[in-house]
């Protein structure tokens, strides 16, 4: 009988070995690092295929046919949930041949069109309009932020910073301008000043994002080294 503790120990050992193989990139690009990378990619792809079959395809397209037979196709409710998906899948297979690839464009067009509509609609209703309204918040110091509890001068300064950052960033991305005789863009000094402020905001934002990514990697590095130390301690303890 297989001991679960042994399985956990082997799994822990393999995990430690793969961690060392990945960390070997510190020396140079080597076969151990590449082997670990390829292994992760292969395992992830295989696992994704298995998940897609067990969680999406089989319960959605196969199980109804196996459970109810082809009589399920005669039901009106299955037209949208079963027949049309099968038809789109079969049409998608025509993409394999260049001569029949035009037939496969229908499901692709459906995917792209619906996806774009959902994304754009969500961006407009969920981001553009609410954020525009948020940028036009009142400067009344008496108003209190519902979640942060900011109020008074603190909130006023914070709102002004957000407003300045939004406007200056938008002005920085305004590339239309009159052309001088020398060929350079003729932009007003005020516009140039706001664009410069916008560039500062953009730099700060990217710096914060990079610092956050670096902090995240430091957390990961700390966890991996601690894991290796635990495994090493386990070996030392026997």
């Amino acid at each position, binding site marked *: 009988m297989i001991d679960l503790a042994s399985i956990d120990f082997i799994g822990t050992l393999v995990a430690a070995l793969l961690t060392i193989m990945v960390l070997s990139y510190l020396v140079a690009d080597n076969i151990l690092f590449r082997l670990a990378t390829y292994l992760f990619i292969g395992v*992830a792809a295989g696992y994704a295929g298995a998940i897609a079959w067990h969680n999406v395809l089989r319960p959605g397209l196969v199980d109804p046919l196996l459970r109810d037979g082809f009589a399920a196709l005669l039901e009106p409710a299955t037209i949208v949930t079963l027949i049309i998906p099968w038809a789109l899948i079969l049409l998608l297979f025509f993409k394999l041949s260049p001569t029949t690839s035009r037939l496969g464009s229908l499901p692709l067009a459906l995917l792209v069109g619906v996806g774009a509509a*959902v994304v754009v609609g969500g961006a407009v209703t969920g981001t553009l309009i609410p954020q525009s309204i948020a940028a036009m918040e009142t400067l009344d110091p008496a108003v209190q932020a519902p979640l942060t509890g900011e109020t008074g001068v603190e909130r006023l300064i914070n709102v002004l910073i957000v407003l300045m950052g939004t406007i200056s960033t938008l002005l920085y991305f305004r590339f239309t301008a009159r052309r001088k005789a020398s060929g350079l863009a003729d932009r007003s000094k005020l516009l140039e000043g706001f664009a410069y402020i916008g560039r500062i905001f953009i730099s700060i934002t990217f710096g914060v994002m990079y610092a956050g990514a670096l902090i995240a990697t430091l*957390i990961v590095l700390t*966890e991996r080294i601690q894991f290796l130390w635990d495994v090493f301690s386990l070996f030392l303890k026997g």
Partner: protein
Amino acid sequence: MAEQRCPMCSKINPEGVEECAHCGARLTPLIISSQQTPGSQPESEGETPDWLARIRSDVEANKDQDPEPEEPGDADDWLGRLRSAGSGEVEPAPDPGEEVPEWISARSPDESVDQKAPEWLSRIRKREKALRENEESKEKPAESGDWLASLRGKTGEQEAEPAAEGDWLSALRETTARDAEEAPPQTPEPLQELRDIGDILPLDEIPPAEPPTVEEVPSLDEQSDDVPVEDQDWLAAFQEEAFVSSGADEPPADAGPPDFLPVEMDLGDPEADDVSDEDIFAALDALEDPATVEPDPSLGGPFREIKDVEWIDTTDLVGEGPELPPAYPPEPVSQHTPALITEDQVPLSTGDSQDHDLEAIDLPDWLGELQETGGEPAQEATKKDQNLAPATLPAWLEAMRPIDTFRSSVEIEPVDDQAVESAGPLAGLRGVLMAEPVVAIPHQASVGSGRLDISERQFAQAELLHRMVDDEERELPLESRPRRQLPFVRWVIAALMILAILGAIVSASPGTTSFPPPVRVPQDLAPLFTLVDELPADKPALLVFDYSPGYTAEFDAVASVILEHLMRRDIAITTVSTQVSGPLLAERMIQRVGREHDLVNGVDYIHLGYLSGGPTAVQLFAAAPRESILRGFLLPEELEGQSAWLSVILNDVQRLSDFGMVAVITAGTDNARVWAEQAHPWMGDTPLLMILSTGAEPLIRPYYESLDPQVEGILTGLPEAVAYEQMNARSADALARWDGFNASVLVVEAVLLAGSIYGLVKWLLKPRRS
């Protein structure tokens, strides 16, 4: 200075030049010159095919057997016999049933003329002799020669189609046809052959006929016996027409000759009444070669003025004389041009070659009689046209030539003087047109230049191309690779960080930290803790695991505090993910955090699994959660093969707002934004929390800080997680990594500080201009 004219371009070239300087054509024969003896063998005889050798040998043998050229006296001789034949010393008229004409049969096979006769004619004469011996045989012998039979057949066919010919000729042919029915061999084959030649060959290529001998030419009496009187209607019509043109009231009873006929023609003579187209051909022969015809003053025939019958030649030779034209006015003798030119620039003489001599063709007796009667006018015409070159075309015939025909002023040499073709399928023949100017001699450019004129731009381009080719051929020196430097800096920084983390981990004692935990609680953490702490326990919390396995270490420390808080409050947990690996990460985290809580799958937590479709799937899930996820992930045994929505946790969940909380654990801003955009309209009063990676927090923060926030809580970074644990009065993974994280941050800050100092010093020590 002697010159020679190019046969191709007719331009003058100096003598001795082999090729024309203007067109490149060869001026002298390529293989054998014209001075080479016919009997000489070419040098390449050994390479000559057998058939060509046989042909050449036959040619040599024939030349050896050829008699001497016929002396001018021969013509006189046959003319003399012709005169005697015309005076009544002729044989009786032949039997109409005979196949061979009388003039052929009258010939004696042992005469010297037979030696010049062609082979086919000799066979005819022999056969005629045999027929004479057997007079009972009146049928046409089939073995009389294929060519003769074919000619007869052709004659019969042509007689069957008289409409295409002139009335007079048609009438004559009809008469001949009727006679042919009674006596098939009535049609004179030589005449038919002459017609055929006239139909096929151009006018300037018709060979002149050989003067017939006395035996060949029958008398007019004989001819008059052969041709019925009623067949001479066409002549009567001519006489009537001539009468009308002369202005007389009525034609004379004896139907005098028309004006286009010679005025001296005595149509009242019974012999003249028998004039037919054959007679006209005889007159043509006399006109073609008047030098060979001696005028007979005793003849008072119709050909006293031979120039008046020139139209006969044209119409009859061409065979297109449906109607006889009126008399042509006499044309002056013009400069004639030869039809053919040999390579020696000598005009071709028809009288010296049997191939081009109409007189070489045996004529019937009736034609010979015409020739006899027309001898005197022909001689007069010859005197008028003494300057007419032999074998040239008369003016009227020259005028009928197509305009585009070749006209050269170069005289054509006699056939005997022409070179014998020594190669090719025409070997042994004379008068062959040279093929070398067309196929053998390469034509040179008329305008040649030994200097290449190019412009400066072209020269520059050529020079550029030359340099490019040179550059391609040039062997580039091997670049010395810079010696690869070992990444010592990277190794030093990595070593520092690893040692710092290890030092913090090793030095830390359990339950304590080397680095103090955050003293000041973040401003956003209290509302979040309060929110989670006040969640209704009867509603499940939905956790969205939308991060990749690479962020597992971070979210194990950050998200576990929320999960621990939920578990501690016994709130059922439901997981879902738009990432493929999300359900497995959710299971792993729950197992790690819920190890102390004895969680049961299907009772304390349930995995909805993978939600495929990206933003569309999120919207669909927010609108109808039960329709978007059909089964689940790692369902308990009692729900094996069924849907996760059948679990006790999700019994009351129909919409997204039925969850007590929705927490999105993601490392990417896009996933967080999608959930904020797509799911928030369907959330209702259900709070939306964001557990973010440190790098994604700045972009999601506006959704949180607005007056109408779309995100009710944000938890990000290890410091907040440690603070949350402290608020939760429980130490977990966040506090366990606090020392190592702080040590690594210190190393990073030290490295950044060292790098900044190094850069500043380097910038200060950098030598500047002026």
